[in-house]
């Protein structure tokens, strides 16, 4: 029954049609919220008592690393769907999400490094949080490389899904690294269950930036997946009707 349900709602044709309708709404919401969140954070939020104005990188860095992990988690769910139920769309979504994950992880690492210069006095430290995030970045690149290494695309999809599932072990390590090891990186200031230690004047623009970046990345995902799906399904009748 679950399998029938999944297959019914996971046709590439329906996905392309539905996301094409949703794209304008998502991109408008994403960009509007990013502009509001970043303008608020960069110009209206007060300077931090310890870090001064350098902390304003938080409105980019934190959303970026949140989505670096969430995108991988999404890919792992898709990988399970592909391995267990052989859902074609799930493999297409992994392949489309991986470059976005690599890009946003790079932005997270890069913004953190730049933030580290005025704050820690160094742009890089081999501590647990930063190193595990670097491993995540390498995982994204590895997944893309692996998928591009085979001429048989079905085989590529399957091996890519297996690698994604194996790599998901890194996500809780990244999340818990600041608690398990003594690191230069500070522990989480916001948690889903336990509230926040950040002042509301900084917290609200941060939340808006997170939501804004989320919608922006979903919009980007819609575009990358559309081009990939059309390419993979180019011999199907619905694609000919679509273009």
């Amino acid at each position, binding site marked *: 029954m679950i399998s029938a349900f999944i297959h019914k709602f996971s046709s590439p044709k329906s996905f392309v049609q539905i996301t094409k309708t949703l794209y304008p709404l998502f991109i408008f919401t994403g960009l509007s919220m990013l502009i509001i969140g*970043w303008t608020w954070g*960069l*110009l*209206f*939020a*007060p*300077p931090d008592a310890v870090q*001064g*104005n*350098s902390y*304003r*990188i938080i409105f*980019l*860095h934190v959303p*970026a690393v949140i989505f670096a992990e969430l995108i991988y988690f999404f890919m792992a769910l898709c990988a399970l769907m592909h391995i267990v139920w052989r859902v074609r769309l799930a493999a297409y979504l992994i392949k489309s999400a991986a470059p*976005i994950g690599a*890009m946003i992880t*790079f*932005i997270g690492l*890069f*913004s953190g490094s*730049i*933030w580290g*210069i*005025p704050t820690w006095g160094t742009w890089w430290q081999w501590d647990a949080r930063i190193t595990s995030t670097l491993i995540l970045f390498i995982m994204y690149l590895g997944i893309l490389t692996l998928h591009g290494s085979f001429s048989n695309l079905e085989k590529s999809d399957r091996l890519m899904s297996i690698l994604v599932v194996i790599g998901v072990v890194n996500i809780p390590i990244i999340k818990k690294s600041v608690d398990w090891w003594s690191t230069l990186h500070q522990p989480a200031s916001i948690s889903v269950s336990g509230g926040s230690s950040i002042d*509301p*004047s900084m917290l*609200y623009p941060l939340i808006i930036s997170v939501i804004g970046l989320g919608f*922006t990345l979903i919009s*980007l995902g819609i*575009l*990358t997946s*559309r*081009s990939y799906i*059309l*390419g993979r399904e*180019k011999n199907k009748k619905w*694609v*000919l009707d679509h*273009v």
Partner: protein
Amino acid sequence: MFDIAFNNVNEIIGMNGHGIYVWSVYSIAISILVMSFLVAKNRIKGVKRKIKIKNAPS
């Protein structure tokens, strides 16, 4: 909460010596995001063009 945190444009750009870090990070990130959207849009156009050419009546 909605008072601007700076007195003039020079303060906004300089951010007490931290402007170089803050603005460079945002500029590079925004450039990467914009580039990603442009590349994705171009890919869709490219794929559609290829499919149309392949299936054009001869």
